[in-house]
Structure formats: structure tokens, C-alpha cells
């Protein structure tokens, strides 16, 4: 099984799948960011997720120190930054997989910084992982069905009485099939997920996350290690999430991808948010360029660097 199988599916697939061409989606949040100030911690018109004073240290290392961040509802927000910037740690803090030392995270106004991950999924916030977690020795369709929340048959007692959950089980099954169809994975439904290629695993993980019917989808490097054809398909699916009214946050390295699909970009470096802005403006931001290329990339190596110099100071010296 190769990834190429998906490319024709994108354009020639039957029914709803054909509608999923990346370019065909409207952007329901177009223009929302026009009045947002392009500075770290900027207030958004309608934030779904707000992080405030979130700090996480490992020993002496401050991995994350985010003063304030608001994520706009219904938009695609990209979280970028050089390696070791703390993006994945921040992701873990937002999704309950790790707890912040200080600060709060709120989802739709409710504090979630002490809420266990499985409860967050039930509240409509779902995540995927940088290292894809296909459940290898389960079939693709079982992977999908697992994602449905509020299943009556997941209770140890009710599970023993089939009639209590069989109707719901067939509903879940139908929903799984629909989603598999939308992601062009129907033909793999009964295969073990462990037999899927890397790209297919990314697809199944995203499709499985959608089974929870999330309000907010958090994708940790959804395009990592995926061939260019499938990347286009994945981009289309991410835009599809926005078209359905879901909010998306994703971590990404590839700037082309970021420019293509994101409405707003948040840049992290050394655990802090150093810039926020629209995809077009962010590439011109001096702090971002410094973070990626090194603060003193245009200076002679013999020049002594100021101890603990923050990006702000560098911004001044450069400007």
C-alpha cells in the first residue's frame, strides 16, 4: 500500500470525498484578524482557548514561560518555532498531558489546567501526537470507533449486556465509515492499523480524533514525514475542519504549509511567545528571523553577546 493511492482519490473520489479539494473551502473566519494587534499576547475577538502565565520548568530549565496567549475560535492557528522552543511541551500543558508549575489554561472560559486529558477529550478538545500513535494491533475501523465519546458499552457492567449498547455501536460504526470515506481510507477499514504507511497513520489519527466531535483540534506536526502529495491532502482536511466550524491549533516546521493554511501564526522560542501575526507578516518579523537564524547571525562571531539578552533587546539593537 502506498500513499499514491490517495492522490487520485482527492480529485476523482466519489460523493463527499470529491468535495474535499483543498482549494474549494471557504474561510469562515476571513477578516477576523484584521483588527488584531500583531504582538505577543494579543487579544482576539472570540478566544476559545486562553493560556495565562503558564510556566513549566524541568530542573533548572524553563521549558515554557507563556505570559498570555489567546486562540481564536474557528480559525487555524499555527504554532511554530525552532527546535527546542517548547512547542510540544506547551502542547502537553494545554492538553492536560503535563501540568504547568504556574498559570492557568481555560477552554471556553473554564479553567482546565488541572483537568485530566481524558476529560478534556469529552469537553471537545482533542489532540494528535508528533510520533503518530496508530493502535497497531487493532483494525482501522476499531481505531475509529474507539474515538467516539460517551459510549454506553464502555462501562464494565453495561458492556456485558449487548442490547444496552448495540444500537449506539452501529451508529458509531456508521460515523466511522463516513469519516473513513471522507479521508479516503474505506478500503483499509479491516486492515490492522499497524500495516498502514506513515502518511496513512497521520490520516487515521486525524480521522480518529474527529470521532470525538471536537470543538478544538490540536495537531502536533501533522505533516511530519509525509510525502508532498499526501501533504496536500492533509492540508485539505485541516481546512475542512475549519469549514465545519472547528478550531485548529497545529505545530509545524514547514513555512510553506504554515503560509498556505493558517489564519494566525504564533511563534515560540526558548519557551516564550516571541511573536504573533498573520502568516504574511510573520516572516518579516525581526524577532522571528533572529529566533530561527540566531540572534547574531549578521554579526561577526568575535562580538561578545550580551548575557541573557532577550529578543526585545536584540530588536532594539538591530532597529
Amino acid at each position, binding site marked *: 500500500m502506498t500513499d499514491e493511492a490517495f492522490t487520485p482519490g482527492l480529485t476523482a473520489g466519489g460523493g463527499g470525498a470529491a468535495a474535499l479539494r483543498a482549494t474549494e473551502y471557504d474561510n469562515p473566519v476571513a477578516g477576523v484578524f484584521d483588527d488584531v494587534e500583531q504582538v505577543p499576547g494579543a487579544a482576539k475577538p472570540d478566544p476559545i482557548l486562553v493560556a495565562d502565565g503558564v510556566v513549566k520548568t524541568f530542573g533548572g530549565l524553563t521549558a515554557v514561560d507563556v505570559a498570555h496567549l489567546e486562540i481564536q475560535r474557528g480559525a487555524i492557528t499555527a504554532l511554530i518555532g525552532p527546535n527546542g522552543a517548547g512547542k510540544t511541551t506547551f502542547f502537553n500543558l494545554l492538553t492536560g498531558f503535563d501540568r504547568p508549575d504556574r498559570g492557568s489554561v481555560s477552554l471556553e472560559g473554564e479553567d482546565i489546567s488541572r483537568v485530566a486529558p*481524558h476529560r478534556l*477529550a469529552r469537553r471537545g478538545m482533542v489532540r494528535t*501526537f508528533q510520533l503518530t500513535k496508530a*493502535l497497531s494491533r487493532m483494525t482501522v475501523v476499531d*481505531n475509529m470507533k474507539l474515538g467516539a465519546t460517551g459510549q454506553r458499552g464502555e462501562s464494565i457492567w453495561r*458492556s*456485558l449486556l449487548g442490547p444496552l*449498547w448495540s444500537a449506539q455501536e452501529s451508529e458509531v460504526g456508521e460515523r466511522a465509515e463516513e469519516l473513513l470515506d471522507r479521508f479516503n481510507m474505506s478500503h483499509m477499514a479491516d486492515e490492522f492499523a499497524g500495516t498502514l504507511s506513515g502518511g496513512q497513520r497521520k490520516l487515521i489519527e486525524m480521522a480518529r480524533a474527529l470521532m470525538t466531535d471536537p470543538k478544538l483540534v490540536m495537531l502536533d506536526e501533522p505533516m511530519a514525514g509525509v510525502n508532498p502529495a499526501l501533504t496536500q491532502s492533509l492540508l485539505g482536511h485541516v481546512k475542512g475542519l475549519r469549514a465545519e466550524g472547528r478550531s485548529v491549533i497545529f505545530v509545524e516546521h514547514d513555512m510553506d504549509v504554515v503560509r498556505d493554511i493558517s489564519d494566525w501564526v504564533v511563534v515560540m522560542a526558548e519557551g516564550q511567545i516571541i511573536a504573533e501575526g498573520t502568516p504574511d507578516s510573520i516572516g518579516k518579523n525581526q524577532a522571528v528571523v533572529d529566533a530561527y537564524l540566531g540572534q547574531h547571525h549578521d554579526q561577526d562571531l568575535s562580538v561578545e553577546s550580551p548575557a541573557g539578552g532577550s529578543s526585545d533587546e536584540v530588536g532594539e539593537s538591530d532597529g
Partner: protein
Amino acid sequence: MDWGFIFERVMTAAIGPEVIVFALAAIGLNVQFGYAGLLNFGQVGFMAAGAYGVGMAVYWLNISFWWGIGLGLVYATVLAMLLGVPTLRLRADYLAIVTIASSETIRLFVRWRGNSGRTGASEGIGEFARPFYDLNPFDNAARYQFGPFNFLGRDLWVVLVGWILVAIALLLVWQWMRSPWGRALKAIREDEDAARALGKNSYVYKLQALLIGGLIASVAGMLQVIQKAAVQPDTFNPVITFMIWTILILGGPGRVWSPVVGSMIYWSLIVFLENVLRQLPPGTRSTLESTIKLSDFNISQFRFILVGLGLILLARYRPQGIFGSREEMALDDR
């Protein structure tokens, strides 16, 4: 060599009390390891919990044998909670460490002299199972022969009750594992974080699996001491746990039937080897005696050596067990 006799012995052993006890214990381990991925290296501790429940009810508390069954289940529940609550939030290896230690701790604790009034210490407990045999529809002392099977009346009663228990346990496991509960359990085995991200409380599922597996093993322990009519601390040594693991791996973890078939094959093989070794022609026998010091006294050890050799070959040529699929197993390595 009397092959007819050996056949009868092997067939009788294949459905006998030993097979039932180990099948039950392995069904419990299958829930824990085969479906939930829990590394329980102290299954014998749960068997001891059940065994000492019935024994201590009669010997120490002076209550009915039947209440003892309830006490055994309570012991197993307490043990599962003690082992699971602190460790199941941690990485899988922590459960392995505490279970292997706990089963030895239990054995040493019950055989401690200070406990002789409660557990009978190293003497153990006898004379507690009479109410069970009072219900026996067969004659306890008579021999019953049907086809190649030959049982004493009391063992026939144990075997009958035992297979009913095995059938119930298999039915429960089958229904659980085809339900969404079983699906969530398998997902946790595959990747706990993925299951949590999808809204499954993996801690509760793992605790439930540990408890179910432990309760089934405690029933196995009860049946074992009822059949032996004695509770002996040293029958609950760690080797038993690894025999249960062997049986499960032999059958193939994560399949409903594998503990039963694994147990049947394991014990048939042991009984077959024992009988063949005992009936070897005198010439062969004396050769073996002079070369590898095989005697009447160490035949039972020697058969385990042969079984071990067989298991090495199994691990080499059919690592997935009898029911497992090699393709499925290989998926793990990717």
C-alpha cells in the same frame, strides 16, 4: 511400554483439575496481559488470596466454607487495589516489580509462625472443604470410567464444577472483549496516551482489568485447594506464576481460547513425558541412569527440563503461540 495406559493417563490429565486451575489462572492473566497489556508477575498471589480466603474462613474465623468463597474474593480485591492503585498511573514496569514482590511476600507472610492461629503457618490448613464434597452427586470414593477418562468420584465433582467455572469465565471474557469496553482496553494496551487523548480513563480501565484477572485467579486458587483438600503456603511459590505465563504464551495472548488450550497442551505434555520416562525399557533406562543420572526420584524434574526445551523451540518457531497470528505480532516491531 503400555501405550493404552499412557493414552488414558494423558486424556484424563487433559481435562483434569490441574488443567482447570491453570486455565482459570491463565484466563485471568489473559485479561490483564493479553488484552490490557499489564505485566502481572504475581498471579500466584491472587491464587493464594482465594485459597486462604476459604481456608481461613473455616480455620480462623469459624464461619462457613461458603462465606470463605466471598472472603477469598474480598482478599483478591484488596490485593488488586493495593497493587494497582499506586502503580497503574506509572509506567508498566512498576506493576511488574510490585506484583512479583507481593506474591512472595504473601507466601512468606502466611507461612510465618506468628500467623499459625490464622493461616496455619507452614503446616497450612486442612479439613475445610467438606461442605463442597457433601454436595457431590457422585460417590466421593468410587472410580468412574468413561471412554479414556478415569476419575475418582471426588475429582469428577471438582472437574465438573471446574469446567462450568471455566465456561463462565470464557463467556465473560468473550463478551467483554467484543464490547466497546474491550476495545478501549486493547487501545490502552497498544498506546495508553492515544486512548487518553480520545477520552478514555486508562487508569480506571487498567485497574478494572487487574481486578477481573485477579478475581478469576483467586477462583483458580480456591478450586486448587478444594481439590487438594489442603491449603499449603509453599504450593504458592513464584514458579506457578511463570507456569501460568508459559501456558498463556503457548496458547497465544489476546485470544479467548488460548489459556484453556495452552493449559491442556502443557499438562498433557507433562503427564505424557512422565509416563513415558517411567516406562522406558530397562536397557534405555540404565543407559540414562549412568549418563544423565535419571532416576525415579528426579523424573518429575527431568520432564520439566524437556518441557523447557520444547518451549524454547516454540519461542523460536511459533512465537505467537497456537492461536496468535505472526503477522499481527510483527506489527509491534514497527
